[in-house]
């Protein structure tokens, strides 16, 4: 409304002015010319922006495509023919060497599906930011982008290791490659010394004198050949396999019945997950002393390290005391892991703590338990129920104080230290966290405190005193 109203008003005013002018003129002079003359008042714009002085023109003149000849049918065809020529028969023959018949048919079908003229008119190399990162007509193999070319057929799944006969034959085949002329052909056979009528028959059918005669002359011939040979040996050695050939035979010749087929990978073929012939016929080498408790072999190394049997290891008390989700910030993103602190104890004066981290919770827990068993230390206990004296230990900002307590006091400690005491076999204890209560650090500090108890015997030795525990003197020593 705010824009339309002044516009309407100006239109109205213009109309009024022209009418008024006409009436005034008619009263004074002849009215004819004033009717056709345009009104002299300035025309209002229908928008609020500033009016341009003149119509805007580009400072640069354009050339039309027709004038350049780009729309010319002949020129388009000429360009198409030059830039996108069809395959020549020679090129097709060349392609046939590289591609299989089906692949070549696919290539030709693809070529036929695209009109070369369309490529000329519409085909553009993209320059926008969202273009594909490479230009590819699939004529070259780009190792970064493309998959590796597999030039050889897949390995024969039925291939097996050669037996002695096959191996010998394979070796002869290999050696035959280096034979110049017919080596064995130069040597005559026994048959050659027999009379003509017996030559085609088996040696066993020959009469005795014929056979003897033939053998005698054959032996004489062989001896003569053997004398003659050494002179030729040197000449023949140039024709035989070189050291490189021998090395290639030893290193690269396939020992399987796949006719020395070359694989696509330099790695040996992996065995299938379950080898067909032997699946279920073999067992893992586990110690029979384990009584089948550790078929997966998890505790085998631990068994060696600690000298405990698997049953003893499994009978230890385990408890996960601290479980944290931790993450490693890498350029690929956050890698979340489970960090587990576990204790292990035999309930009779041995305790250990173990830490482990893994992306898998089960693995982390299992590893932490193993580490806890490995780290088991003897915990000195007074009367097998409490600790010697009061201990204070500090890990980080966590300060743990443990206090020795009389019989029947119980475990008035935090739940984590309670579990540690239960695993270590301590029944009377009090504790206090003076500063930080960080779970992991308090557990570590409590473990250190349990390990580093003062030893009254050592103190007595250091001071040169005789040490007597009066609890063992009173009551006739009937205290625990």
């Amino acid at each position, binding site marked *: 409304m705010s824009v339309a109203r002044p516009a309407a008003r100006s239109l109205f005013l213009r109309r009024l002015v022209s009418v008024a002018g006409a009436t005034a003129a008619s009263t004074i002079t002849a009215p004819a010319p004033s009717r056709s003359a345009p009104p002299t008042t300035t025309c209002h714009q229908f928008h609020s922006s500033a009016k341009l002085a003149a119509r805007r023109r580009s400072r640069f003149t354009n050339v039309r495509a027709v004038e350049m000849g780009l729309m010319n049918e002949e020129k388009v065809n000429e360009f198409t023919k030059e830039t996108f020529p069809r395959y020549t028969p020679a090129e097709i023959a060349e392609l046939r060497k590289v591609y299989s018949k089906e692949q070549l048919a696919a290539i030709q079908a693809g070529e036929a599906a695209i009109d070369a003229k369309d490529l000329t008119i519409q085909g553009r190399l993209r320059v926008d930011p969202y273009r594909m990162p490479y230009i590819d007509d699939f004529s070259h193999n780009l190792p970064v982008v493309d998959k590796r070319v597999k030039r050889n057929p897949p390995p024969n799944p039925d291939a097996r290791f050669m037996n002695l006969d096959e191996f010998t034959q394979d070796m002869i085949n290999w050696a035959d490659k280096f034979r110049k002329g017919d080596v064995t052909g130069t040597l005559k056979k026994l048959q050659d010394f027999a009379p003509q009528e017996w030559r085609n028959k088996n040696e066993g059918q020959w009469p005795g004198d014929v056979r003897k005669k033939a053998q005698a002359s054959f032996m004489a011939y062989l001896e003569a050949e053997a004398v003659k040979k050494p002179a030729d040996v040197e000449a023949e050695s140039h024709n035989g396999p070189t050291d490189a050939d021998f090395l290639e035979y030893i290193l690269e010749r396939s020992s399987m019945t796949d006719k020395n087929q070359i694989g696509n990978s330099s790695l040996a073929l992996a065995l299938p997950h379950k080898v067909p012939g032997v699946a279920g016929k073999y067992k893992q080498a586990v110690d029979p002393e384990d009584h089948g408790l550790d078929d997966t072999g998890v505790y085998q190394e631990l068994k060696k390290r600690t000298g405990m049997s698997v049953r003893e290891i499994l009978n230890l008390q385990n408890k996960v005391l601290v479980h944290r989700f931790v993450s490693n910030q890498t350029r690929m993103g956050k890698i979340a892991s489970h960090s587990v602190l576990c204790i292990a104890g035999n309930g009779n004066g041995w305790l250990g703590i173990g830490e482990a981290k893994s992306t898998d919770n089960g693995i982390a827990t299992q590893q932490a338990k193993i580490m806890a068993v490995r780290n088991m230390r003897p915990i000195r206990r007074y009367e097998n129920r409490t600790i010697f*004296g*009061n201990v204070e230990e500090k890990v980080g900002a966590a300060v743990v104080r443990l206090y020795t307590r009389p019989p029947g006091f119980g475990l008035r400690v935090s739940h984590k230290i309670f579990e540690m005491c239960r695993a270590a076999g301590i029944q009377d204890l009090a504790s206090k966290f003076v500063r930080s209560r960080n779970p992991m650090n308090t557990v570590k500090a409590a473990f250190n405190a349990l390990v580093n108890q*003062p030893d009254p015997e*050592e*103190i007595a*030795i*250091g*001071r*040169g005193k005789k040490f007597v525990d009066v609890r063992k003197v009173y009551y006739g020593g009937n205290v625990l």
Partner: protein
Amino acid sequence: MGIHSVANACAHLQNASRARLGLTSLPNTKYNLMLALAMHRAGFLSSVTRGGPHPPPPEALLSYEEPEPVTNENVATRRIWVGLKYWDNQPVLKKVQAISKPSRLVTADFKELSRVTRGFPAGMLKGLSLGECLFLSTDRGVLEAREALEKKVGGLLLCRAS
């Protein structure tokens, strides 16, 4: 008799022990001498010898020799030389903490002392823990808490050592 020298001696003994010194010296005061002898009786020190500004020869540490008489000329240079003990790579005297200071003297009577020695707190005084000793000044000289209990005396608490 002020006890500032005892408080200083406590701090010095702890520092010397942590620095793994074998022989160190204290100012020659009667209080220091009595405390050093009490500690020697308790087994914290290997030797207590009166001497001058230089450490006495080793043979003087292990046997009694008549010390040089104290005169007006040499009184300022007299020292008490104490030998420190170590066992199993650890100092025998790990911690010495003065209780009384000149501005605040702390005493304990026989009853309090008997509680403290059994490991229970008595008033502001915490009970003795494993291997801890309490030295106090009584009218029978400077004694360890157990000695004082035997003699049924209390007194001015000097320091606790462990």
